[in-house]
């Protein structure tokens, strides 16, 4: 039928244009990065010793408390409080050191092992802390407590894993808070760099809080070079694939960026991405449901319209 041929021509040219302007052009414009599936294989060599040992959580606890970790990090589940508030900590270290309660579930074990022994290497920020720069990464490497250092690190990781919630209990919000929230705000879900902003009764309390956030941001700016971007819309602005690859290794997209590799495991990364979509695209489920109904309705409408046309044209042809 002639009309179908014409339709095929229209569809052909439309699709060619679409393909050139969207998938093809974007493929040329954006750097392609292959995901390594959060394997962190560049750390294999440095962590070979630790990963071959079986850790003991009880010994790990002593090592964590006596080895210096808790001088900077809080461990809320073990009733170990932070030694200073977030704003003061940031002015000392550049950023508030994370609470370690759930570090065992959020982060990859191999990454934790490398991090404890050599933070700048694990975080991929050695370009910022070169000998020439005279700067040291604020997290001090663990040099050992006198025994086999690999065994000691394995014990510490076993301890972190023993106190953490299970992967099933880890919510997207918890994963996000652990890995991202101390540097990035997410205004659409009420996050400042100091955490979710509470509701205050008086304006003066609210402004005092804002002032603290500004102070914290100043430390962060000095440490990172600029204020890390708000993450409210990033899931859509960068897309899921790019967000995932970026979380896995920021250097792969932005060579020389001050953002450290955060070292989350694959499951936690998915949770973080889910949380970013909760902010950027919160109505996606509603959209899918309603969309399906609307498509069914449109098909029904089209069938009725075709029948009506046939009815009217019966007298004409």
């Amino acid at each position: 039928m002639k009309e179908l041929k014409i339709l095929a021509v229209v569809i052909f040219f439309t699709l060619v244009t679409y393909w050139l302007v969207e998938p093809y052009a974007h493929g040329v414009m954006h750097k392609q990065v292959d995901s390594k599936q959060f394997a962190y294989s560049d750390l294999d060599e440095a962590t070979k010793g630790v990963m071959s040992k079986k850790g003991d959580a009880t010994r790990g606890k002593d090592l964590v408390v006596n080895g210096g970790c808790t001088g900077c990090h809080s461990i809320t589940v073990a009733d170990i409080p932070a030694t200073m508030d977030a704003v003061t900590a940031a002015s000392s270290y550049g950023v508030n050191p994370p609470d370690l309660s759930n570090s065992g579930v959020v982060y990859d074990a191999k990454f934790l092992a490398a991090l404890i022994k050599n933070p700048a290497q694990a975080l991929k920020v050695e370009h910022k802390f070169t000998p020439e720069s005279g700067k040291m990464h604020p997290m001090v490497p663990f040099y050992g407590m006198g025994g086999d250092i690999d065994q000691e690190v394995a014990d510490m990781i076993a301890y972190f894993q023993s106190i953490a919630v299970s992967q099933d209990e880890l919510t997207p919000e918890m994963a996000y808070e652990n890995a991202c929230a101390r540097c990035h705000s997410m205004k659409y879900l009420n996050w400042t760099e100091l955490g979710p902003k509470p509701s205050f009764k008086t304006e003066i309390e609210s402004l005092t809080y804002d002032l603290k956030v500004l102070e914290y941001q100043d430390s962060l700016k000095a440490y990172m070079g600029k204020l890390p971007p708000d993450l409210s819309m990033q899931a859509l602005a960068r897309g899921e694939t790019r967000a995932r690859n970026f979380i896995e290794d920021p250097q792969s997209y932005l060579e020389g960026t001050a953002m450290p590799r955060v070292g989350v495991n694959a499951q936690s990364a998915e949770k973080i991405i889910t949380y970013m979509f909760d902010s950027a695209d919160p109505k996606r489920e509603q959209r899918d449901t309603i969309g399906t109904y609307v498509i069914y309705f449109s098909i029904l409408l089209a069938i009725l319209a075709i029948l009506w046309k046939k009815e009217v044209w019966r007298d004409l042809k």
Partner: protein
Amino acid sequence: MANFTKATSVKDWLNQRLAIEKVEKVMASEYWIPKNINFLWAMGMILAVLFTLLVISGIFLLMYYQPNVDTAFVSVNYTIMSEVDFGWLWRHIHAVASSVTFLIIYIHMFTAIYYGSYKKGREMIWVTGMLLFITFSAEAFSGYMLPWGQMSYWAGMVITNIFSLGDLQFNGLVEWIRGDYVPGQAFLNRFFMLHVFLLPLAIMGLIGLHFAALRIPHVNNQDGEEIDFEAESKKYLDGDKKGSKVMRFANDFMSKDIMVLAIFLIFFFYLVFFHYTFALDPVNLDPADGLVTPAHIYPEWYFLWSYEILRPFSVNIGLIAFGFAQVIFLLLPWLDRSPNTVPASRRGLFKYWFWLMLGNMIALTALGKLPPEGMYSTLGLISALLFIVMWLALPFITKNEKKA
């Protein structure tokens, strides 16, 4: 004064005052359409529906949008998308409909070019149509400024810069258009006004004119057949519906219009719900920042071909080429010197001209988005030159066309 009698019914009452029966005949039941047409003749109806959807969704968006450089981005991306019930739906409909409107406009335009529907008394249909295209372009551009994202800001910067006209250095004119040295609050406010008031008003007026221009010459048909509308309509009214070459607009042709529209709506709603990202460029989901230039600045897809005619040349020549591309389509009825009003397939050299022009426009569209480096840059220059040469050659290749 007319003689009014006591009305026998509401219809009669209205008829005495508004002549509704006469209007109905002129607009619908005795508005004669040739039977010999295909679904491409329904694009006008689809465009009318898309414009209606744009107006309705626009009204809902307008209730929450804030034309302020500090709050515009949040009002669109947070308030409308998260807080307002079904705000996302109106925004997706608005964004997708604007993009699809241009797709249908291009199909509508190339249909007219293919079938020669701009000739022999149909010049004003073509001219008003092209004026609509230009007004819709301005409407789309001004709307693109409103979310105040990175692409809004930088596209606004680049496009308003065009008005400095290269070496003429009309920088004062650029500042006057922007109301500032760079896009800012004054800029956003005036584009808001243009987008929600002046340009829609102009579009509505032009749509009326476009329809009116169609009434006297009637629509073309797919074989270029000259139809005696008087005789054929008489045949229809005398009962020979099958033998007549024409049909009523309503319900005869309208039933087909609506069939095509309903099938189109499946495609449209698929895009709205499941494939909308092409109409919401990710770069524009970063808030406007005058200190960070995006790595790639490009307009929406429907402006890419004319952008690519601007880009491959030096500033002054590029501007002349760009100006040429903006007005040349308008002159088509006079550049085509052949008297033949038949499909391009029966028109000798023009057949090749048509398909090459379509292919080249698609090439320009693709190249306008690709970064202007290496091969793409060379191809862009060739395509832009080809576009100009083809338009200059049109009068010569159509002049000696044989009578089809």
